[in-house]
């Protein structure tokens, strides 16, 4: 049956206008999406390298001052030189190992900041909202988006009338009069056309995956995530394949099959996420950032009043105008204490906000079971590292690193001393811990298994129907 199918498909699809257009559009759009993703990752990586370099250069200079001071213990050092409060460490979440496969939250959430004891953990991420909101609201074009939205559409367009067109033209009768059974023919044609789509796309994805962007190396982490990403994409493809086969088997008229499949596509890809998002927002509103902001400001204001007593509220903003060289250690100590007080007061608010957000997210995650597109989107974003969770994890790690920095320098600052070189060198630079592909797979196991089960159930239904007596599928 395979050679007969190839004989037919070669002439009617593969080397005909529809097949050529399909393969060309997959190569062009896939190639563009891959190129665009790589350019974006290269741009982000370069910007982060520059960002970290500037700060690391400053840290090196700071360390040189400390070395100089330690090497001449008796000599008097400049008041501001090598003070622990001047440590500003870069904390960067590098582009995800497969970041070029999904833009996801990368253009919305911050991936770099500066760790400094001057900063309250609640304010650690600021001044990153420069992107054009018009473009953000439109959404972007990347390989993950192609899988979620475009590929199912191409699958439907390529195969919705594989059998109904034969039936409507009465070729089906001629076919059935020659072949003993039509089931293998229908399956093999469905597999051929959809296999072509997925084969071409997988080639594009593999080529994009094996060519790491910019200066990145092809790491085992990238390969593991690539395998996960392609696996998730294929399972999503299997769902659509089974759904199309089901519609082909059960519905008679081409236009009904097409309209049903397109309507389902629009429902899964757009309506369910849109309605689900709106309903969940109404039922479980996200915690109010404005309310949290007010609470935090209140807490910080109260904490700040302690220092205001001493400095009349001016010192922290303009130390150069008010603090004499002799007062510098006192000034740093009081500022550190005030900041710690503010951090202590705002921590519960920040924690409550994050917990509320987490609880809401867990509830909303249940909605993914209403739409295979949402499951696929989540899985693909997760393997590509464009998911919100990755950025939230980065924020949590950066805040923890800030707390660690603050605690490490605290005793020296309060004692109005400098850190020892050994203590400074013992402080490791910030390094974001990526979730492993295995952990991601474990996290996604339930929804992806659900998707697979759905695909199997639909495939079983289609197989059963196509195996029914001819009069059910032919006449």
């Amino acid at each position, binding site marked *: 049956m395979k*050679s*007969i199918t190839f*004989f*037919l498909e070669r*002439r*009617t699809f593969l080397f*005909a206008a529809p097949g050529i257009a399909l393969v060309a559009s997959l190569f062009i759009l896939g190639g563009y999406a891959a190129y665009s993703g790589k350019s974006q990752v290269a741009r982000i990586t370069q910007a982060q390298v520059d960002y970290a370099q500037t700060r690391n250069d400053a840290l090196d200079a700071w360390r040189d001052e400390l070395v100089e001071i330690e090497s001449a213990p008796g000599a008097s050092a400049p008041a501001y030189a090598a003070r622990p409060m001047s440590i500003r460490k870069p904390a960067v979440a590098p582009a995800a190992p497969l970041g070029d496969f999904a833009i996801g939250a990368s253009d919305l959430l911050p991936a770099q900041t500066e760790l400094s004891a001057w900063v309250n953990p609640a304010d650690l991420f600021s001044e990153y909202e420069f992107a054009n909101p018009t473009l953000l609201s439109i959404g972007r074009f990347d390989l993950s988006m192609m899988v979620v939205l475009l590929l199912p559409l191409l699958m439907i367009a390529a195969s919705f009338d594989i059998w109904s067109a034969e039936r409507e*033209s*009465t*070729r089906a*009768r*001629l*076919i*059935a*009069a*020659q*072949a*003993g*059974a039509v089931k293998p*023919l229908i399956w093999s044609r469905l597999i051929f056309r959809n296999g072509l789509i997925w084969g071409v796309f997988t080639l594009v994805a593999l080529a994009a995956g094996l060519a790491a962007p910019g200066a990145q190396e092809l790491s085992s982490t990238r390969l593991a995530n690539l395998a996960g990403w392609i696996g998730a994409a294929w399972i999503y493809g299997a769902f659509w394949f089974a759904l199309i086969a089901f519609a082909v088997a059960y519905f008679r008229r081409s236009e009904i099959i097409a309209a049903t499949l397109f309507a389902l596509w629009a429902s899964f890809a757009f309506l369910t996420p849109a309605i689900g998002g709106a309903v969940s927002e109404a039922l479980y509103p996200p915690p109010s950032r404005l309310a949290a902001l007010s609470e935090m400001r209140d807490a910080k204001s109260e904490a700040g009043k302690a220092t205001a007593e001493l400095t009349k509220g001016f010192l922290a903003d303009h130390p150069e105008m008010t603090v004499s060289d002799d007062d510098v250690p006192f000034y740093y100590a009081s500022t550190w204490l005030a900041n710690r007080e503010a951090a202590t007061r705002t921590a519960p608010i920040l924690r409550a906000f994050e917990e509320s957000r987490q609880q809401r997210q867990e509830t909303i995650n249940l909605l993914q079971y209403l739409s295979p597109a949402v499951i696929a989107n989540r899985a693909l974003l997760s393997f590509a590292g464009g998911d919100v969770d990755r950025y939230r994890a980065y924020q949590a790690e950066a805040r923890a690193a800030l707390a660690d920095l603050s605690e490490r320098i605290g005793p020296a600052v309060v004692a109005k001393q400098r850190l020892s070189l050994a203590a400074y060198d013992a402080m490791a630079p910030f390094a974001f811990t990526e979730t492993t592909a295995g952990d991601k797979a474990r996290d996604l196991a339930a929804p992806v298994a659900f998707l697979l089960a759905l695909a199997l159930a639909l495939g079983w239904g289609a197989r059963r129907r196509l195996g029914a*007596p*001819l*009069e059910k599928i*032919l*006449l």
Partner: protein
Amino acid sequence: MLEAKSLSKSFGAVNALNDLNLSVQEGEILCLLGANGAGKTTTINLFLGFLEPSAGEALIDGVAAHQDPAGTKAKLGYIPEQVALYPQLSGLENLDYFLRLAGVQAKETELLEALEAAGLERAAAPRKAGTYSKGMRQKVGIGVALAKKAPVLLLDEPLSGLDPSAANDLCGSLRQLRDNGRAILMATHDVFRAKEVGTRIGIMKGGYLVDQLEADKLDAREIEQIYLSHMHDGADAANAA
């Protein structure tokens, strides 16, 4: 070669075919005449194995069509009212494809010979089937049956919509096939063409085979009279039952 034994088919409460008994031997053409809904196409569908009988058997060379679909189809050639081909493929490629579906691998020369034998001009064979007239498509259909060397031919209204010349060509081909020993069952509305090609003529009404006539013993006008009298006589079906 082709035999219906107490063959019946119901669709829910509707009895489309009732207790049909007939046989067609090698070198014979049985033409089934009847109005729309008389049961002609249902009979052909049962022999093709497209439908499962509610009772009785549709036998091809002694084998029930629905019990061995692959085996019986190998012996069948089928020409529907509209022979639909893939417009992107040539007549030759269409023939090749349908033969492959039937499990027959033929050389190009054999394919061309089959088409020629079916009456298709050699020059038309490599042309895209999208450019074919209905008559040319019918010839490709006959070509499939010829190349398959099918001993039994089932034709469902093959003459409808054909111009007189094409219909004449088709009738000529059928006579030739009959003379070559094929057993042919043809459903048609055309009394005169039935008389022209048929060995026997069966008249169907309301799912019953109400009469069988020897074509060479009556002229076309007499056959038409008998046919019309059956059509106008409401009691016929009951009598036949």
